[in-house]
């Protein structure tokens, strides 16, 4: 990196458009912030008391003038607003197909989990030319995930998910900052984002690395590479394991014959609640259903599901959600194994 940059690197698809808008705003500011002082300076000198000048017929006000300098700035800012608004909608609308990475912020580190279960701390490896969607939450206070070179930032809140997406365009290492003040070591909640080619990324995914859980303990083994071909998504696999271990299967049977509704095909679909409302089963809904099942009761079922609040770490919650999501994934649905099968595979793997 150069030692004295004046402009940040452009390393994502957003960087160009945002910098362009920024440039326009600077130009606009130069018109007002540059010309206006010039006019003032001119008037200051021209009409300084020591200057001979015509001071008769002073105007006291003028409606046309007032309208001019009301309407012109108004039109300009509205123009800028609409430009910015469309850009904003882009920034907030991830494309359909994307690589989903879970991010957990905690005082004072970032913890990321890739789709195959590979985890990393204070680093984020992403492929370039590939939309990446981060699904983020916090374990304690509000943080903010900020990659200046990508021009993206999103607060990370405790107790819910926020998302953010970007598409890196250049390989390289970039700053990762926590931008929302979060306590003592806020300024050390930094890391780096490594953008690499897709091939490198895939290779990186399969290299085993030590897993450090958010609570600081080291988990076992690498990215579970051997399982990927046979089962697919180890994140979901871990979730499946939990689903069995926590006894969810007891009520949520895939055939729908349990006390609770089946999880198959649940994610992303609208479900009818007892009070008649329709709720889309997204991450937040799933999360709420697990932590606070009584909040929304599915029509036709009783409010008997216990709350798992306080019994699951954010990690485990993410895994459960990934598992439930995998049950709706149309592609994987055909190759999907039943709960029991997964459990047995897991059991084998753990031996």
């Amino acid at each position, binding site marked *: 990196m150069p030692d004295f940059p004046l402009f940040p690197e452009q390393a994502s698809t957003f960087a160009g458009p945002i910098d362009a808008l920024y440039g326009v705003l600077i130009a606009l500011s130069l018109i007002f912030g540059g010309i206006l002082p010039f006019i003032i300076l001119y008037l200051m000198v021209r009409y300084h008391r020591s200057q001979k000048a015509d001071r008769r017929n002073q105007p006291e006000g003028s409606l046309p003038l007032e309208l001019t300098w009301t309407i012109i700035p108004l039109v300009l800012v509205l123009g800028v607003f609409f430009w910015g608004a469309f850009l904003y909608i882009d920034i907030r609308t991830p494309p359909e197909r994307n690589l989903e990475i879970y991010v957990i912020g905690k005082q004072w580190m970032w913890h990321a989990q890739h789709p195959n279960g590979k985890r990393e701390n204070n680093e984020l490896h992403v492929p370039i030319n590939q939309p990446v969607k981060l699904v983020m939450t916090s374990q304690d*206070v509000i943080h903010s995930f900020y990659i200046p070179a990508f021009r993206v930032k999103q607060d990370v809140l405790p107790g819910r998910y926020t998302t953010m997406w970007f598409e890196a365009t250049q390989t390289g290492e970039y700053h990762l900052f926590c931008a929302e003040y979060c306590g003592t070591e806020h300024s050390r909640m930094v890391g780096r984002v490594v953008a690499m080619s897709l091939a490198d990324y895939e290779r990186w995914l399969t290299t085993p690395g030590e897993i450090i859980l958010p609570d600081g303990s080291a988990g076992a083994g690498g990215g579970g590479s051997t399982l990927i071909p046979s089962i697919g998504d180890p994140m979901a696999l871990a979730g499946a394991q939990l689903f069995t271990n926590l006894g969810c299967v007891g009520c949520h049977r895939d055939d729908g014959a349990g006390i609770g509704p089946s999880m198959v095909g649940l994610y992303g679909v609208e479900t009818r609640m007892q009070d008649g409302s329709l709720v889309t089963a997204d991450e937040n809904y799933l999360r709420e259903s697990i932590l606070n099942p009584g909040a929304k009761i599915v029509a036709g079922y009783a409010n008997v599901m216990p709350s798992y609040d306080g019994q699951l770490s954010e990690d485990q919650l993410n895994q459960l959600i990934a598992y439930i999501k995998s049950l709706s994934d149309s592609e994987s649905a055909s190759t999907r194994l039943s709960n029991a099968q997964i459990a047995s595979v897991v059991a084998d793997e753990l031996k």
Partner: protein
Amino acid sequence: MATTALPSRGYLEDDTPTVWAWIKSWLFTVDHKRIAILYLLAINFYFLLGGLAASVVRIELITPQGDLLSSDLYNRAFTLHGIIMVFFFLIPGIPAVLGNFLIPLMVGARDMAFPRLNLFSWYLYMIGGIFALSAAVFGGVDTGWTFYTPFSSTYSNSNVILTIAGAFVMGFSSIATGVNFIVTTHTMRAPGLTWFRLPLFVWSSYATSLIIVLATPVVGITLLLVAIERIWGVGIFDPALGGDPLLFQHLFWFYSHPAVYIMILPGFGVISELISTFSRKRIFGYEFIAFSSMAIAIIGFLVWGHHMFVSGQSVYAGLVFSFITMLVAIPSAIKVFNWTATLYKGSISYRTPMLYALGFIGLFVIGGLTGIFLGVVAIDIHVTDTYFVVAHFHYVMVGGTIMAYLGGIHFWWPKMTGRMYNEVWGGISALIIFVGFNMTFFPQFVLGYLGMPRRYHVYPQEFQVLHVLSSAGSTVLAIGFIIPLVYLTLSLWKGKLAGDNPWDATGLEWTVSSPPPAHNFDEIPVVTTEAYAYPPEAAERDAAAWRPGSPL
């Protein structure tokens, strides 16, 4: 009704026999002018304290490592800086000092409508200040001035409650001032002084009071809830306890955005007075300036969410807030253009207050225009919580409000004290402040766009050059702030007598003696002219009277 009329005794004079009686005559005064002086002393003390904290922050930031302060201390330093500067300096600043002193004089009244409430508000201010100070002394606070939950309500282990108590009490002080201004403006105006004959300073103070009255209670109760959450461990804003942190942000910014207009509107009022006086002509577009103050006060209530663009609020809300933020800039633009137009065909003199006024326009325009950058959501996503924001608000708060405050203090100094200050030093320090200010804060725009997050105590190496530049600038700035302190103080003894109207200004406050008599007016004046009623030939005469050697 008492009859001891001592018409020409200045409000500063005393016939108190003992020191104790003298102290009492100040501490129990209900005279709005004395209360203004009490405020002046207290507020300037807090400014120095806040400045000291800023200096500590700037020194620490010279190097990218955290070598001077621990991260804990650094967090406490900028929090102290922010809280003191916002709650104890800038919000009460112009209203409580200049407003208290001038509003009754300007509307031709003998005092505020509620003089004892006025004194009470000073005591509230002092009590609030003592809370905040003791919080700092007993270990400080590290939440940032925004008190975001759940950090402030659950995680921080610093003196949050004490500080909140300070801000809460201070809030009621500013409510008291606001109520007083509103009622005074409505009921105490001299005969003939219609709304459209009021000086623009009164208009803008009125708009300010409106915001104070409507918004301050909300932040009061919000902070109270945070304190309750902390004390009893019950959650309104902490998701772990069942609440929603965004609700806090909504409630906080519902006050704190309008609060930035509490800070700037009185400044607008001062600038209107200065520009007109030192151009020796009527202000251009009086009604537009007056109504734009009210427009800012009202529209200002609709934009608070622009502080929450990346907080997780809905996309719709983001778009709406962004849109209205664009609108709120327009009234400010109207003001700036009208001030500029006032200069045209005037007879401009570069007296110290005018230098501050011109500096104000330049800096406020930069600050305001970068506010537009921030209001455009797409840009804000990148620059929010970076030094770009820091630079923006220092340009409007320091470059705007403090310039106006200093300009106003210089302008009315002869009225308040009866003496003139040293004009040469005045000009010099205004220049130093202008240069130092730009040196300090302009690099921060660049830093911010590069991605330097705010509230960072250690930072990547490549930002150092700009940080050093900024710190160097802040030294210059500090010098610029200390010089007026010196010559203004000296002028109390050394300054030459000012006379009733040293600037040849219009306005009722200039018709009474300097310093004004204790009860302001012997006879309540009857107003028959508009504000800024300079005769059409005033500028011409003034220019004609200029000889080499008379003041610039």
